[in-house]
């Protein structure tokens, strides 16, 4: 990257632990690292190493115990819950392992959901949703419900939902974990396009080395600590 702007994600001395039945489980200890704007990184590590926890912190759906967490210039660790909700709506796109679509909403309505939090008019929303669905190749599935779509198609709807608000970062937790190889390839190619063509910063958790190859760089988490390996 030629530009010397501030990294889009800046993590310093981040610590997170969970309390379970009176016992404190330390998940992340003193993690510090940066992610530059436009980067596509894969977060790897054994199960239970804290990958999802780290991703959730960056995405602003969990709070660290200590340390600072700057995303897109905002220290999100200090935001109030309501402000954090608005911040997420504007800055983060989520992609989940099990797609997490609303079963009673059509593909169109699922993609439209985050736009209900914006000031866009009905017509503007429709225009955007149709464009997003055509970008993920689902023009002919607009009125379908999740149960009428394959896993790969559902994940494409989820991807459309993730970028519909034009967020600065996309977080994906095992986005191919529930898919067959061909569908997984589809999804990975789509993420790469979002990264390359739309400049989205992508943080993807995966334990699949093959999937990780789609990213620019891979970070390994091991027992709550990070070691950096560049591809």
């Amino acid at each position, binding site marked *: 990257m030629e530009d010397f702007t501030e990294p889009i994600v800046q993590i310093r001395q981040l610590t997170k632990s969970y309390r379970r039945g009176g016992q404190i489980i330390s998940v992340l200890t003193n993690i510090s690292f940066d992610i530059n704007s436009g980067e596509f990184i894969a977060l790897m590590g054994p199960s239970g190493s804290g990958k999802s926890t780290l991703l959730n912190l960056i995405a602003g759906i969990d709070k660290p115990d200590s340390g600072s967490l700057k995303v897109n210039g905002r220290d999100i660790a200090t935001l109030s819950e309501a402000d954090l909700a608005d911040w997420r709506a504007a800055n983060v796109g989520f992609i989940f392992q099990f797609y*997490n679509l609303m079963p009673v909403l059509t593909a169109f309505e699922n993609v439209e959901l985050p736009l209900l939090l914006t000031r866009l008019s009905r017509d503007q929303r429709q225009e955007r949703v149709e464009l997003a669905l055509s970008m993920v190749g689902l023009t002919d599935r607009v009125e379908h419900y999740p149960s009428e779509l394959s896993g790969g198609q559902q994940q494409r709807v989820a991807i459309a939902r993730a970028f519909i608000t034009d967020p600065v970062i996309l977080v994906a937790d095992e986005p191919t974990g529930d898919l067959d190889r061909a569908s997984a390839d589809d999804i990975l190619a789509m993420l790469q396009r979002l990264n390359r063509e739309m400049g989205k910063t992508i943080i993807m958790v995966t334990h699949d080395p093959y999937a990780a190859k789609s990213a620019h760089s891979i970070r390994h988490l091991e027992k709550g600590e990070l070691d950096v390996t560049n591809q």
Partner: protein
Amino acid sequence: MYISIPLSYIWRNLIARKLTTLLTAGGMALVVFVFATVLMLEEGLRKTLVETGSPDNVIITRRSAGTEVQSVVDRDQAAIVENQPEVAYSTNGLRLASKETIVLISLAKRSSDKASNVLIRGVGQKGIELRPQVEIVEGRMFRPGSTEIIAGKSVAERYYGAGIGETLRFGQREWTVVGIMDAGKTGFDSEIWGDVDQLMQTFRRPVYSSVILKLNDPAAFSALKTRIETDPRLTLEVKLESVFYAEQSQLLANFIRYLGMMLSIIFSIGAIIGAMITMYASVANRATEIGTMRALGFRRNNILSAFLLEALMLGAAGGVVGLVLASFMQFFTISTMNWQSFSELAFSFTLNIAIITKSLAFALIMGGVGGFLPAARAAGLNIVDSLRAV
């Protein structure tokens, strides 16, 4: 910023769980049905008795008699009352007053052969003129001085011998029904009317039960009341007819109301618990959805209102169904003993806007109360935890 989860999304979640929604809303519908039916019954009774009285009619009975059945007004007293200056004149120059007598007789019901008390009213010549709501719909008025009688519509339908052309035997005489009166669903529909003098002779009664009179000016009521009630020769009580009949319905109306409200409250507790269980299950089943919505930027209060609305919709659905069922009750007439007059009284379930509003409000309250805790739980969920709950 104004944000809300679309109603169609909430509605579709209810539709998606067909059976539970049906059962839960069905439970509420049942409660609303009971609730509305009781109000309709009370309203029907109120309407029947209150409208029996005309606003500018005055009824005079013996002091603290309460009902006409228990009242005694002797001939001298009746004559004094009839000639008070506040009493209106009819077109033929006579006073618009009717000295009446009340007799209870036992008649057999056409439906069950069981006997029940029916009120027979001996009326004067002006008796019908004083009750503009009473209309002869079949046959004719009885002739004065004869053993002819006319029967109220509901009596004619329900008792042997009370139909037009039929005869009844009481007081060791035969009485012929020559007319049917429609009193517009008021209490007179449950009475039989005959000539007051004939009836007094037959039953060997030397006294009247009451005097009904029309005021020449409604404002003159208190003057008349004061004069009669303070006259040492008279031991009488003066009431507006409408007030008199409203008081008669009080005991029965209260009984219906208390019984109905007790039933409604007990049933509604069941329905609320049902709604609560349904909504808790809905929250538990949709934890991931809730977590996802929150991750997308929806706030806790959006989730709270969505689930609360879902419960309210459930209540509203139950309310509408319950009211539709209750509205069919309007086709039924119920007859019961009015303990204050010791006679049978027929009245119907009456639905009005106030009852519709109350019933729907009751349904929404049930939904809201049942949905509040589950909605609060949904809103209180931690995002990460709910996303993990796969």
